[in-house]
């Protein structure tokens, strides 16, 4: 992960991350960006649970393009509030979207067009604060948002970059297609015979994927279907501790800056209690070809 972030997420990057809303959030990748002291990032996402709040609090972020930033089960994001209201640790540019419009902005970039029209947003003041959303008659033109890099966490991937994810996908596919490149972290690194046995489930063209990181637990505390439950208590503790700047700094030291990597982080988590043990495998699809 350290190599992938060092090579493919330079300072100033536009980064789509947390594209499945509440599940499969690449916290490990985000924490590595914090450890490496990334600056001037422009984050793109729909609802990235507490990860945006952490990156903002750590001073990595110049701009946020998102539908919602906070802590989904707990409410407000305290770091995000401090940045927007008081410029702590630094001022933030916010480009508001709705969930629908951020998806359209990414599809526009994926299809290489300047904008896409929609019937949402009419009558909303979001049109007043985001210049990339322009009302024209009874439609709104949503300008393309083009990430330099999309970062995703998935259940399994092979070394060639073929990623399988299941469960709801949020805006993951359009984010990957829109981005210049994709970093994949995965619970299981599998042989290509596994991914290629079900090509419909491959998220992105392998030509987009520049790095695959085998990172078990890389989405904690967010859930991973078939692997980990959501760690609700972890989000609650984060909400409490991040209420003050000092509290957030203590949290960050304990869980990010004083931790060398995800393996060490996971050794501090009671992962056994979070691991899903009641499995529900799907029936395989027959790709017979005669």
């Amino acid at each position: 992960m350290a190599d992938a972030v060092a090579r493919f997420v330079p300072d100033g990057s536009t980064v789509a991350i947390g594209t499945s809303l509440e599940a499969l959030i690449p916290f490990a990748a985000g924490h590595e960006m914090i450890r490496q002291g990334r600056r001037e990032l422009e984050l793109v996402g729909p609802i990235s649970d507490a990860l945006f709040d952490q990156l903002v609090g750590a001073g990595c972020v110049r701009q946020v393009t998102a539908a919602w930033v906070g802590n989904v089960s707990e409410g407000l994001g305290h770091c995000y509030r401090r940045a927007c209201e008081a410029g702590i640790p630094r001022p933030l540019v916010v480009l508001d979207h709705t969930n629908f419009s951020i998806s359209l902005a990414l599809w526009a970039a994926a299809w290489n067009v300047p904008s896409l029209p929609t019937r949402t947003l009419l009558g909303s003041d979001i049109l007043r604060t985001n210049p990339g959303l322009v009302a024209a008659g009874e439609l709104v033109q949503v300008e393309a948002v083009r990430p330099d890099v999309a970062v995703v966490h998935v259940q399994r991937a092979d070394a060639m970059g073929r990623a399988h994810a299941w469960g709801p996908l949020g805006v993951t596919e359009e984010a990957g297609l829109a981005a210049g490149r994709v970093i994949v972290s995965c619970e299981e690194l599998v042989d290509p015979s596994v991914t290629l046995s079900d090509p419909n489930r491959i998220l992105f063209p392998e030509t987009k994927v520049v790095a695959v990181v085998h990172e078990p637990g890389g989405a904690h505390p967010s859930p991973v279907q078939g692997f980990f439950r959501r760690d609700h208590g972890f989000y609650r503790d984060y909400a409490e501790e991040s209420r003050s700047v000092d509290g957030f700094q203590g949290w960050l030291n304990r869980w990010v800056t004083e931790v060398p990597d995800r393996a060490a982080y996971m050794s501090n988590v009671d992962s056994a209690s979070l691991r899903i043990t009641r499995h529900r495998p799907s029936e395989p699809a027959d790709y017979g070809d005669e």
Partner: protein
Amino acid sequence: MSDYTPQELMVAVASREIQDGDLVFVGMRLPILAYAVARNAHAPNARGLFEVGLMRDQPAAGFLGTMGDPPNVAGALWATRMSNVMALMAQGHVDLGFIGGAEVDRFGNLNTSYVGDPAQPKVKLPGSGGGADIAILSRRWVALMRHERRRLVEKVSFVTSPGYGDGTPHWRKQNGLLGGGPEAIITTICVLRFPELGGEAYLASVHPGRTVEEVRAETGWDLKVADQVSETAAPSESELSAIRRFDPEGFWTG
């Protein structure tokens, strides 16, 4: 009658807004429970839609902290990308949506973005999420919120999710909004409703133990009152038992 919390009452009231056969855009928090309660009682054919990219026809078997939690995916009718779910709403196929509000005004406009000047906000709220999409595109919608004078305000400082705009007749139609607008605002102490053609909210029912005077005092504008204000029906035993089955620890309703 058992004791119940204000949140349990809100869930029960919200569940009664769901009609059998509705396609419901469920969203987060209390509405997840409201869908579960309705599906187990009067609306066995209601389907739930979740913007994360899910459709269900039965409540999740396990506790949900978010709509993306694994129990909400197991047994789903459809797991897909968000834009596919939004497509259904854009086509007018979503009968009812639920939205949480931080601030609401007399015309049902919701603010979940900025308190004060957006350039220098006093409070930065998390934002729209799918709220504005639901408010604009679903056929009808219901908001749930805590009833406080600072939250029910004469005019919201920022319209994240439009209700009936400036309250003039046909405001939504004139501005190209597809959906029908808010049907009710369910608060911790009462239910506000709107005239058939939209416009200004009025007090329709007060929750048990509350008074019209109290509601008006806690509301930031001169609240209109229905000719006959009823008392909100308390949660039934079966509603309460369903709520407690789906929120056993009282995470949302405690």
